[in-house]
């Protein structure tokens, strides 16, 4: 009996010692503090340049050394991560309703749109087509997409802003030209039948289209399309459809987190910086559409004029449209059957 107890005691002491060691290691390895920008997928290159421009400027102005860390992924899953405790100081997501999700969890002010100019957007964008070089399938407009034998690449609307915008753009291309909702539903149902794979985020879809060579048409962000053409070294090209959706990627600082980190001033200055001429120029260079009139006028030439319809064409606002199209059991669930 004593012997067994002794052995059992040994086991116990071992476990206690281990837990102690881990606790010690945790205490010794405390995190350093930075500004964390949680963003959507294709903005990696944009914010790399924005950060490089902002850090010295902020140091001169506020005498503070900043390190800005980035996190990128599908807009919806990024918002979900912030709700789950990813300590973003600022979020720069794809769809305003994703910021509303974070507000709903109580982490930021419900009136975040009023805190920054232009409803909290410093750049707009839209959805365009990327096709193989020479446009072999002769795709020019939305109806061309559902011709037989055309494979379409676009990310999953449940996790990605790009994915939602693609579906909305396709839907609106019917209803804005006088088609009925039933016709629009038929059109997108057929369209998603021709999608062989739904990636979680915009960049994943780009990899599928360019590096893996799957699909004939890639429905993607305008800015992502330019980067894609550049990186694919001429093996793909952009096609502008005559009509598409106006995307207004939202910016907000996350109140609950900046208060904890003591980074409210820096987070605010960071987002306000995006509206300055210097940042607007970087934004335009990365093929986003600047929202400040002066910058827009300057870079207008580089942005083909196509008809961009606002989200209000499809719902009361972004959250309402999202709910109508992508809520549990709503339009997307009824038209998309996973293969």
């Amino acid at each position, binding site marked *: 009996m004593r*012997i067994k107890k002794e052995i059992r005691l040994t086991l116990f002491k071992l476990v206690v010692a281990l837990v102690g*060691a881990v606790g010690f*290691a945790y205490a010794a390895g405390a995190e350093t503090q930075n500004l964390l920008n949680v963003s959507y997928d294709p903005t*990696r290159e944009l914010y790399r340049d924005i950060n490089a421009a902002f850090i010295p400027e902020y140091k001169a102005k506020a005498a503070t050394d900043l390190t800005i860390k980035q996190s990128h992924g599908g807009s919806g899953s990024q918002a979900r991560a912030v709700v*789950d405790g990813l300590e973003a100081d600022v979020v720069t997501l794809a769809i305003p309703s994703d910021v509303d999700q974070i507000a709903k969890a109580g982490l930021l002010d419900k009136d975040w749109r009023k805190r920054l100019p232009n409803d909290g957007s410093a750049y707009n964008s839209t959805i365009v087509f990327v096709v193989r070089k020479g446009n072999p399938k002769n795709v020019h407009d939305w109806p061309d997409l559902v011709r037989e034998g055309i494979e379409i690449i676009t990310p999953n609307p449940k996790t990605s802003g790009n994915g939602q915008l693609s579906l909305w753009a396709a839907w609106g291309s019917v209803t804005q030209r006088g088609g009925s909702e039933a016709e629009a539903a038929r059109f997108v149902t057929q369209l998603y039948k021709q999608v062989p794979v739904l990636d979680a985020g915009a960049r994943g879809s780009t990899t599928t289209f360019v590096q893996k060579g799957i699909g004939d048409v890639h429905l993607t962000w305008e800015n992502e399309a330019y980067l894609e053409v550049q990186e694919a070294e001429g093996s793909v090209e952009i096609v502008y459809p005559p009509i598409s959706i106006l995307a207004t990627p939202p910016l907000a600082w996350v109140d609950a987190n900046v208060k904890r980190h003591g980074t409210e001033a820096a987070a605010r200055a960071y987002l306000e910086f995006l509206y300055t001429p210097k940042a607007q120029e970087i934004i335009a260079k990365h093929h986003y559409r600047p929202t400040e009139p002066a910058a827009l006028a300057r870079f207008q030439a580089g942005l083909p004029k196509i008809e961009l319809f606002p989200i209000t064409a499809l719902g009361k606002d972004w959250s309402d449209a999202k709910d109508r199209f992508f809520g549990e059991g709503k339009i997307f669930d009824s038209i998309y059957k996973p293969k």
Partner: protein
Amino acid sequence: MSDSTSGRRPLAPRGEAARSLTPPLADARPAAVRPESAADAAPLRVGAGTKSRRGAEDPAIVRWTLIALAFLAMTILVVIPLANVFYEAFAKGVGTYWDNLYNDPDTLSAIFMTLKVAPMAVALNVVFGFAAAWAIARFRFPGRALLTSLIDLPFAVSPVVAGLLFVLLFGLQGLFGQWLREVDVKIIFAWPGLVLATTFVTFPIVARELIPLMEATGSDEEVAAVSLGARWWQLLSRVTLPNVKWGILYGVILCNARAMGEFGAVAVVSGRITGQTDTMPLRVEKLFQEYNLPGAFAVASVLTLLALITLVIKVTLEWRTRRELEEASRLRTLRSEA
């Protein structure tokens, strides 16, 4: 009382216990090694001679075709992809390779993160795996069968689900989320989460390695040690650990290899913060997605290199274990002859 203390083989003579040590150890080794070492360890050499004679009877063409096929498969599936990793990594020159690794702080941070997370996960697994193996091999208790199957559970659960599990537990909306935030402890979206997720998916490795070994060695020596007055640390360091040291080492190596390469579970709990919560596999994907192919392959080459080092250590260990077994069986034969 003494019956139950000594576990499954209470009265096994010393020689029996030592011989039964062979199967579990041999099981852990690749199939190619096994028959040979089993034949070496066992005093009876029945199969060896007949097998080689039958091999010689096969027509040469069959033998050579099979050998060629095996080589072809190995070349296509293993050698070429591996060589390609290094080829792509160095495609733009050694300078670029070095730049991609050393002058990219985000990549460096990912390398250090892996070198920090993997050993911690391995350490946790060694201690918990050892404790679990000991409990299962030495004691009968209610729920023992349940514990045995629970240990295997992480192999059955998808790594992504494992990651989500921790998000649901420690996330802000999770069970302990609010409390963790109040005491300001970060688990998910920080390195402790990475360690937890990695530990979870690699948990069975060490325990699985140790349970059969400890069951085979039996507890006679431990009982003797304790009855002779050994304290708990003496029991551990002089008797129990030396008996299973090769099993532990082997488990450590396998566990480490798996821990460094883990992707799914850590991807879920990492929060994708570049330069902060990226491990090497996550960094490879990120670089690939950012069109930096040489960079992605450079990090991949470091991972591959670490895997190759692991392989060398594993082979060395196997060789040493085999020698020890041969030694033991030789001594046994001598003893039985005397």
